[in-house]
């Protein structure tokens, strides 16, 4: 069987030093991603999902572990090779206005992306910008606009166009719709989905919004304090979550009820997310877990294989 694994992440960890203290951002994360698929990374503050996204692109250097993209170990690449490889792995940010240069027109920003990677000529780049803008659903005049003249939804489409201009294989989407209005969110999500099908893109989709992640993802990894606590194909995760944290997350989603009788009870979880500066010993979730045992407090659980593609890091999972 042909191995179409695009990305392999093995035991990756990252710790930051903040004013002398250690901040554990990502701890021993592993996963593989096949070409054309979408991996969803879900978590709340301190989960490390954004950091993980940046580690995959080597915008940050991992302290431990290996990241292999398209067969190449990212850590071993020389500067120039890394820069060339960047063409194949791109990122879309949560706040598109922050990631665009306020002094550059949007069209120049997209052209610059191609210029940096030495794609085409000035003329061909200009034409490509028109193609891309049309593809993401923006009128051509937008190319002369500065970021502050566009709305959030339009800016996000620009960000997508810029990423696409390099013809990448992988795109990390870091909370791409969280800052947008609901009605615009759907438009952008659909655009991302259509583009994936058209160009056979691979996505890592980072979000705290479980419903949106489920919509786009083939597989989902749930992160808590830098660790993957559960990982499974999207439908399996929602149908039978095995980790207590995953269950709590699912319970916290407030759906619009179909009928008044189905209004949800507000069931809060106890406690607060611990600070990544001082994570609990044993299982990171034990202080808030209703099922915690002594073992949970003392011993960090391993990733148990619950079914073929379903892993859960919990002593009590079966």
């Amino acid at each position: 069987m042909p191995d179409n694994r695009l990305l392999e992440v093995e035991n990756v960890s990252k710790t930051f030093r903040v004013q002398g203290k250690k901040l554990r951002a990502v701890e021993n994360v592993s996963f593989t991603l096949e070409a054309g698929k979408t991996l969803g990374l879900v978590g709340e503050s301190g989960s490390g999902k954004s950091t993980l996204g940046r580690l995959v692109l080597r915008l940050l250097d991992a302290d431990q572990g290996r990241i292999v993209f398209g067969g190449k170990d990212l850590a071993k690449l020389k500067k120039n090779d890394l820069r060339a490889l960047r063409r194949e792995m791109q990122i879309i940010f949560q706040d598109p206005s922050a990631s665009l240069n306020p002094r550059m027109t949007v069209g120049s920003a997209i052209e610059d992306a191609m210029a940096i990677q030495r794609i085409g000529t000035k003329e061909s780049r200009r034409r490509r910008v028109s193609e891309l803008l049309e593809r993401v659903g923006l009128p051509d005049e937008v190319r002369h606009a500065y970021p502050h003249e566009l709305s959030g939804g339009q800016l996000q489409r620009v960000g997508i166009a810029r990423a696409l201009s390099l013809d990448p294989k992988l795109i990390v989407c870091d909370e791409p719709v969280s800052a947008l209005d609901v009605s615009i969110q759907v438009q952008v999500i659909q655009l991302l989905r259509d583009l994936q099908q058209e160009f056979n893109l691979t996505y890592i989709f980072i979000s705290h919004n479980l419903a949106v992640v489920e919509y786009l993802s083939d597989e989902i990894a749930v992160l808590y304090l830098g660790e993957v606590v559960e990982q499974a194909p999207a439908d399996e995760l929602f149908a039978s979550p095995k980790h207590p944290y995953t269950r709590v997350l699912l319970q916290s989603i407030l759906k619009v009820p179909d009928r008044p009788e189905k209004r949800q009870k507000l069931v809060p979880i106890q406690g607060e997310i611990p600070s990544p500066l001082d994570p609990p010993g044993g299982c990171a979730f034990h202080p808030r877990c209703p099922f915690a045992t002594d073992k949970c407090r003392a011993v960090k659980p391993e990733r148990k294989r619950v079914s073929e593609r379903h892993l859960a890091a919990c002593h009590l999972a079966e």
Partner: protein
Amino acid sequence: MSEPLLAIDNLHVRFSRSEDEVYAVNGVSFAIGENETLGIVGESGSGKSVTLMSSIGLLRENGKITAGTAKFRGRDLLRLRPKQLEDIRGRDIGVIFQDPMTSLNPVMRIGDQIMEAMLTHHYAGRKEAFERTLQLLNEMGIPDPKSRFRNYPHEFSGGMRQRIMIAIALACEPQLLIADEPTTALDVTVQMQILALLQELRDRRGMSVVMVTHDFGVATNFCDRIIVMYGGRIMEAARTDRFLRATAHPYSLGLKRSIIEVGHKGKPIVPIPGAARTLTGEPVGCPFAERCSFATERCSAEAPALRAFAEDHEVACHHAEEVVSLAR
């Protein structure tokens, strides 16, 4: 309804920008009575926050109220002198905002901030205020109140800070709590905690709550009544259960249909085409007409009035009946 707690009538608010004016609120009227929870739902630019904030006198500098009244127990808040308004706000009306980090004083201990709310409104003497503060911190679920009294805002997490803000808002036992996107900036599990807390407080104290949110899930699960706003106008106003049974406005329906929810994988979701525009002139016709699939010529010419559609259910749409029958 007996005398409403807060009654807003025909409110119009405009903002001056360097080159033009933004018509943020264009004729909004609603009321909230005792022991009611009202949710005002809309996207950015709908005017939902501006409506609420301006009615209690918290309008940005470049904004002006060009018409309307906002009566709290019969007294028009917009016509009061600043001192009188400050008395009411804080004592009879509590306010919580979206971002606790910018609403709390970073250089003042949180305990003192809560006490200050009581002292400036002459609600209690120092000693009693101190005791009450500890009680409040306890009620808000902040562990170890005695020692945490002396902490500063930056020493707390986002969820904790929001609880502190709620404590300040409720310090003088107001009858009405106004919440502007109180959980938007919070993690989803924290949001659940804060909403559960608010629900508990509301039930225990018999408060009325007006909550502005863009999250339909939050509004429909937490509030008794819902108002949907767009383009500075109310599109639909109804008791929540009526709203859930029969959504009568194309915008509300469109919003409901465009929310991605768990279990929708693979199903087509219908986005509302286009995007909201900022109104820079006197609005003509229905602000939603340009994006509405039910729109006819009449809609762009004549703004639909908010009319009674069914019991406890008002809609501002010429084609509400069509919408409801289609939804079925």
